């Protein structure tokens, strides 16, 4: 039975990636229409999208910076979505992880060697994200409270908690914006060659491989079984509360690490504006990718490219970078529409 399930999974995986590409092409076509309406040549516009996202080594490096947090969060969400746990809390866990990572680095940097401060930041980020996931996880596992609304609520609580802390107790001296002090330069993630990309990028293949491997362990099998049929999973030795709590905590820790990589690799301080909607994008990608690894990775690359491409398009041909939200919204909508009923998780 398992072999059948796996081969069926492979077939669907192929079609999900194809569906993502198809949705992207369709969205770009609608986007071209929109570009014409606002009075710009779509060929020029899309040339600057291409050049700004993947057209050069620098562009690729910029895209990688946006891809990293998105991909880390998405990979971390895979077990939860496979188990049928629809946590939409990555956004808040990302912000809390960024905050704890940033504060930890600022705290320990004067006392520890730089590499140890970096590791401390990563652990603190993971811990912060994990802690922010505990409440909704326990409420779902032991009281049966729907995780969608609670995780959503925790996202907003995180937003306002961050604003309060960064305006008050955690605000950096002499900071003009709502932010902490900048983190010391030796705690920034080292860059790769002459580009802005950093070594955090090397973490991604490891995480992806780890998730592929997890899917082949008995634990990974029980998670999928739980998602398909909880009573059957219980007979196979999966405990309800363990599947729910652990999968939600894994998602939380991953989102926290994504927050850390944003701070250590890009922002270099914790800003009140750290929230970028990556958490929701990651969730949508995993949900539409039916919890599979390949379409999730493909989607993270695509969405990051759309992001940097749209920024380049704003500079190049003067179309507002809000274009990226139209594109991402269209891709997600069309992909969900093509999937339709019964192809959901």
């Amino acid at each position, binding site marked *: 039975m398992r072999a059948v399930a796996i081969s069926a999974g492979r077939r669907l995986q192929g079609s999900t990636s194809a569906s993502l590409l198809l949705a992207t092409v369709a969205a770009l076509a609608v986007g071209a229409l929109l570009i014409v309406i*606002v009075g710009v040549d779509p060929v020029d516009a899309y040339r600057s999208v291409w050049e700004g996202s993947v057209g050069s080594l620098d562009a690729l490096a910029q895209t990688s910076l946006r891809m990293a947090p998105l991909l880390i969060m998405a990979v971390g969400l895979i077990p939860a979505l496979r188990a049928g746990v629809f946590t939409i809390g990555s956004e808040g866990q990302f912000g809390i992880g960024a905050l704890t990572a940033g504060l930890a680095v600022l705290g320990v940097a004067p006392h520890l060697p730089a590499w140890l401060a970096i590791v401390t930041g990563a652990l603190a980020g993971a811990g912060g994200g994990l802690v922010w996931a505990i*409440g909704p996880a326990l409420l779902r596992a032991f009281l049966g409270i729907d995780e969608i609304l609670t995780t959503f609520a925790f996202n907003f609580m995180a937003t306002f908690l961050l604003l309060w802390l960064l305006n008050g107790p955690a605000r950096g001296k002499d900071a003009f914006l709502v932010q902490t002090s900048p983190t010391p330069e030796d705690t920034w993630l080292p860059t790769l060659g002459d580009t802005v990309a950093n070594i955090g990028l090397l973490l991604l293949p490891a995480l992806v491989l780890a998730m592929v491997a997890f899917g082949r362990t008995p634990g990974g099998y029980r998670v999928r079984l739980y998602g398909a049929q909880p009573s059957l999973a219980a007979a196979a030795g999966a405990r309800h509360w363990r599947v729910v709590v652990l999968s939600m905590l894994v998602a939380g820790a991953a989102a926290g690490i994504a927050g850390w990589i944003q701070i250590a690799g890009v922002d270099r301080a914790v800003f009140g504006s750290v929230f970028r909607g990556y958490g929701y994008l990651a969730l949508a990608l995993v949900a539409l990718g039916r919890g599979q690894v390949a379409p999730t990775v493909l989607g993270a690359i695509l969405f990051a490219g759309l992001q940097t491409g749209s920024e380049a398009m704003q500079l190049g041909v003067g179309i507002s970078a809000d274009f990226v939200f139209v594109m991402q919204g269209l891709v997600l909508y069309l992909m969900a*529409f093509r999937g*339709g009923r019964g192809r959901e998780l």
Partner: protein
Amino acid sequence: MSWLLADLAAVFTVGTLASGVRLAVPTALAAIGEAISQRAGVFNLGIEGMMMVGAFTGFAVASGSGSEALGMLAGGAGGAALAILMAAGSVWRGTNIIVTGFALVLLGQGLANLLYAQNQESLKTFEPLGEVGFGPLADIPVVGPVLFAQNAVFYAALVLAVAVALLLARTRFGLEADACGADPAAAVAKGVDVRRTRTLAVLAAGLFAGLGGAAITVGSVGNYGSNITAGKGFVALALVAVARNRIGWVLVAALLFGTLEASQARLQDVDGIPVELLPAVPWVAVVLALLGLAIAHVVRLRRAA
């Protein structure tokens, strides 16, 4: 302690209450629509995007035509137009409701901000709607400034709220919507056209969200700005969750939150109150309400056993 009470008394004045009512209008409109949709069993996360589209179409039409009334109508139509996509996906195609709703948040925000950014020069700002004159009624202490010195959108919203409450409680549509929300399979068995009912409910949600967006741009600002709804659609989701889809409680929740919002600026001067945390209040309330319901459920089960 007495100094704190004195400070708080200075914050919660009639003026705060009056501007609280004003601030509550857009959120209340969106929340009324969301309640209709959720009564029919459709959790409409796209509401924020629908508000954004309504805010933009309302502003653009009012700016171009010079008519605030036309602007409000265009706002409602804009929100409903985006809601067509929600209905097509989640009701007719059976797509994942969270992903589809989120996609429409992105699409609505993106379209509204983009179209504004590209047409900013040609769109003129205008004076927002003024107060409706009620003559001496506005001079009544407390009640006057709070209830009789608001703009036309406020009174329209009140009428609409009563109409929706009656629609849900007294008409066939209301009963069918509740049936679709409670148990769609049973509703089908009883001959209810679930898709049709849900489609109408989702379109109504879009209409009200669009009106809510236009209430900001046409009703109180006379301008548009990037992300002008600032998450009010999400706040509406929280209010509906706390009010458990009942229109009366939705209005109470919206008023309470509007007053909290209005007091925020003045609370800044009161020591010891973290004003940045005040917007989190509805979300804490959502979690506490869900917790309360779950505990009550467990207690009932224990008693029964």
